[in-house]
């Protein structure tokens, strides 16, 4: 039984991780496509509520206006997405990384337009909660 359970945790979960990675990548792709189309409302619908709320407080305007005022990368394609427990990241082929959280309504972006700073150091993000 322990070996069976070990296999469930060790082998079973990565198998279903592929679907979740596709879902996370799709959210990031929709977010950047909405920015390219200058559709702030659609872009904000892909954001984690905490992140959207913090953005509104910082910029002192509605999320749909504030998100378009940031220097976030627009359009492009997602080259890589990885999922761990309820966290994920998605990397654009053109550069820039988004971080996502999984909630009851699926994946939402918690930080976007992130660039690496130094090894083992947090990314520097244009938008984060």
């Amino acid at each position, binding site marked *: 039984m*322990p*070996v069976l*359970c*070990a*296999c469930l*945790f*060790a082998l*079973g*979960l990565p198998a279903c991780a592929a679907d979740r990675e596709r879902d996370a990548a799709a959210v990031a792709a929709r977010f950047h496509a909405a920015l390219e189309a200058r559709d702030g409302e659609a872009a904000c619908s892909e954001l*984690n509520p*905490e992140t959207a709320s913090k953005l509104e407080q910082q910029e002192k305007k509605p999320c749909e206006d504030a998100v378009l005022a940031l220097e976030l990368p627009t359009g492009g394609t997602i080259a890589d997405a*990885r999922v*761990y*427990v*309820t*966290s*994920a*990241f998605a990397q654009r082929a053109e550069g820039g990384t988004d*971080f996502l*959280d*999984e*909630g*009851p309504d699926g994946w*939402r972006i*918690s*930080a976007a337009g*992130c660039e*690496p700073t130094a090894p*083992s*150091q*947090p*990314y520097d*993000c244009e938008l*984060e*909660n």
Partner: protein
Amino acid sequence: MRRFLKENSLSIVFLALFLAALVGQAIAGHADFNDNAVSHGDPTISLGRYVVSSDFGAAVMENWQSEYLQFTLFILLTVWLLQRGSPESKELDKAGRESDQSQKVGPYAQQNSPRWAKLGGIRRTLYENSLVLVMGTFWLGTWLAQSVTGTAQYNAEQLDHQQDPVGWSHYITTADFWESTLQNWQSEFLAVGSMAILAVYLRQRGSPESKPVGAPHGATGVEG
């Protein structure tokens, strides 16, 4: 049925305790996971989602691997190592793998001995060591599972802090992996060592894990 329950009560009670404790761990772990999520401004998850998560998997596996390591080592080391006065030890003149005659194998097997004990060759070698082989396999399997689920759990925290995830081969060199491994190992080694030495001087009337109450402290390899 009553007879079956009586004759297997030890296994049945421990299986029931195990399942109850595992359910309790899942409920408490889920509540703790969501408490942490709320404090970090992250979304909460359902109990069903939690019990298939790497977070729960790592918490379960790190305990399982240490228990199987404990028993694997205990079975193996008590072949050669002794503790004067302990019922957990063999008699002082019996250290080692012992003779075929005392182990009732090959030509010394009895009519009702297991079939592979009567044979020679690889089958007997396997059967002679089957307890350690199976327990050792469980230990390595669960330790591997701990490392895989631990990698996912570690990476979830990395992403929460907007840091790069790491691969499995990197994770098993991290302090996080070894801290969770060694904190479980030390408690198992302490428990076994305590049992071996306390059972020299202390008794539990009626328990086969203890010497008979009136047995002298120096009596070794005697079970009550």
